[in-house]
């Protein structure tokens, strides 16, 4: 079973939940799919055994064959190519790596070259398999990195994916592989607003979902009302306590600082197993 831990809003506690869940479920592998800001390693100090580079295609223009006709620039919807006089400018930051310019060029003057955008690291942490993606600062999109991470999953063990915040392309790539989506929210109007969007995305992907209310306490009922209305169960609450925030700030997984959460998370896992897509 593959569970994606997602949130809509950033900073609600995805990594806290994903790391503690992985430590509580025997043999579970943890995948940090927040390649823009991977953080799970900070709580687990994994040993990395292998690094797989991730690259995207960018055009390489052979200026001896080029007639400066401008078809490539005309074709490119992302404005990643510009033809000026006897020059072809390539803007790798804007390139989506579609390769269309190669086919648009009537002279066959454009070929594939590669631009490294990050890497996928494979290793282990405390007896659990660990996979993480890292986007190179300055590279635009982590989608390819997440896709590469998914290609390294072992499918015979419980899998927990720490997804990026938001609901855009990279989140969707992380959720697409999952059988269940665990949404971590906080009881504020911000948390509620973004939870609604995350529930919408899960519904659109036809993915069963459950909710963790982190920093639970003074505004839970609007969140619970929304969950009831949408038919999404609340599987765990983590209270708003300064000691929990302090343990997090020391880099301690929740289940190390407060071992009682091991049982709570295993109970949540059992409920997820009954509700997951098969």
């Amino acid at each position, binding site marked *: 079973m593959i569970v994606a831990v997602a949130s809509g809003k*950033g900073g609600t506690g995805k990594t806290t939940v994903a790391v503690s869940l992985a430590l509580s479920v025997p043999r579970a592998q943890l995948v940090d799919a927040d390649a823009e800001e991977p953080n799970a390693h900070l709580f687990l100090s994994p040993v990395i055994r292998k690094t797989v580079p991730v690259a995207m*295609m960018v055009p390489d223009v052979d200026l001896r064959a080029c007639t400066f006709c401008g078809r490539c620039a005309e074709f490119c919807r992302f404005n990643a190519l510009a033809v000026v006089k006897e020059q072809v400018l390539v803007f790798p930051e804007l390139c989506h790596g579609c390769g269309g310019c190669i086919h648009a060029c009537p002279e066959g003057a454009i070929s594939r070259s590669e631009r490294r955008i990050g890497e996928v690291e494979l290793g282990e942490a405390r007896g659990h398999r660990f996979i993480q993606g890292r986007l190179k600062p300055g590279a635009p999109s982590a989608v390819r990195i997440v896709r590469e991470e998914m290609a390294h999953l072992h499918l015979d063990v419980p899998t927990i994916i720490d997804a990026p*915040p938001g609901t855009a392309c990279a989140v969707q790539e992380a959720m697409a592989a999952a059988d269940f989506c665990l949404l971590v929210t906080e009881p504020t109007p911000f948390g509620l607003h973004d939870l609604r969007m995350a529930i919408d995305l899960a519904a659109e992907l036809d993915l069963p979902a459950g909710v963790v209310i982190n920093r639970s306490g003074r505004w839970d009922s609007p969140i619970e009302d929304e969950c009831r209305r949408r038919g999404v169960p609340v599987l765990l609450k983590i209270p708003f306590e300064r000691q929990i925030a302090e343990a997090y*700030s020391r880099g301690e997984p929740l289940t190390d600082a407060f071992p009682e959460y091991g049982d709570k998370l295993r109970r949540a896992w059992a409920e997820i197993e009954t509700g997951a897509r098969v």
Partner: protein
Amino acid sequence: MKELLVISGKGGTGKTTVVGSFAALAPFKVLADADVDAPNLHLLLAPDQLEESPYSGSDLASVDRKACTECGRCTDLCEFEAIRNGVVDARRCEGCGTCALVCPVDAIGMAPQTTGRVYLSSTRFGPLVHAQLMAGAEASGKLVTQVRQRARAAAEQRHVDLILTDGSPGIGCPVIASLSGVDAALIVSEPTPSGLHDLGRVLQVAAHFGVPTAVSVNKWDINADLTRAIERLSIALGATTLTRIPFDPAVVDATVAATPVVEWAYGEASKAVRALWKDVASWGALT
């Protein structure tokens, strides 16, 4: 005209809390919410919507099934694995048009798809430009650029010379789109291992685009040692350090009441955010 962007690297460190309070403290400005993926600023500012327009981030391929011979050339050449047996996966299609270009029987067309909405609203603190990207949509960087252009136009129209922009977490395309051409970026961090790690990455991206940066540590007293480590790293990476904000439950109360914290209480966090605004208002990059 000056534009201040507030970002964080790590999500949930307090960007919107800070921008919402700056909205209340800055005299004349236009507000922009560039976190199009999970916009929250409007929740603090209770906007009245003035204008709404659809946003098309990218084109989408469509196949004329009658003309398609299922030769598979589009499938072979699509880098995004978005087209198979004459069926387009709208979630994966980036709208590049390669399939339409290579189809030998011209069975594929490209058409714009609506993937979000842009709003101009009025709030008690001034105009707000915000947007909502549809769940799972592509090209949020382009929508960020549109929000910023609208905000600039609104500021010019009103002869206002400050734009306050609430950014998104991370370091990917929306953050890059929000950084290009801003006058200064304030980074709101928090004293946690994730806060420190992500700050380093976001400062590298800001430096890459030549944007002057300053850092304020929120909830700093949760871990004073890490706060010092964050400030040391900030200085080492060329950022200025500004007033810290202490942990204060009033921030949660204010958020729950959908009110900027400086309007909600005169507690420790509220005082610190006021001092932070003073720092920012006199910051060389913005004057």
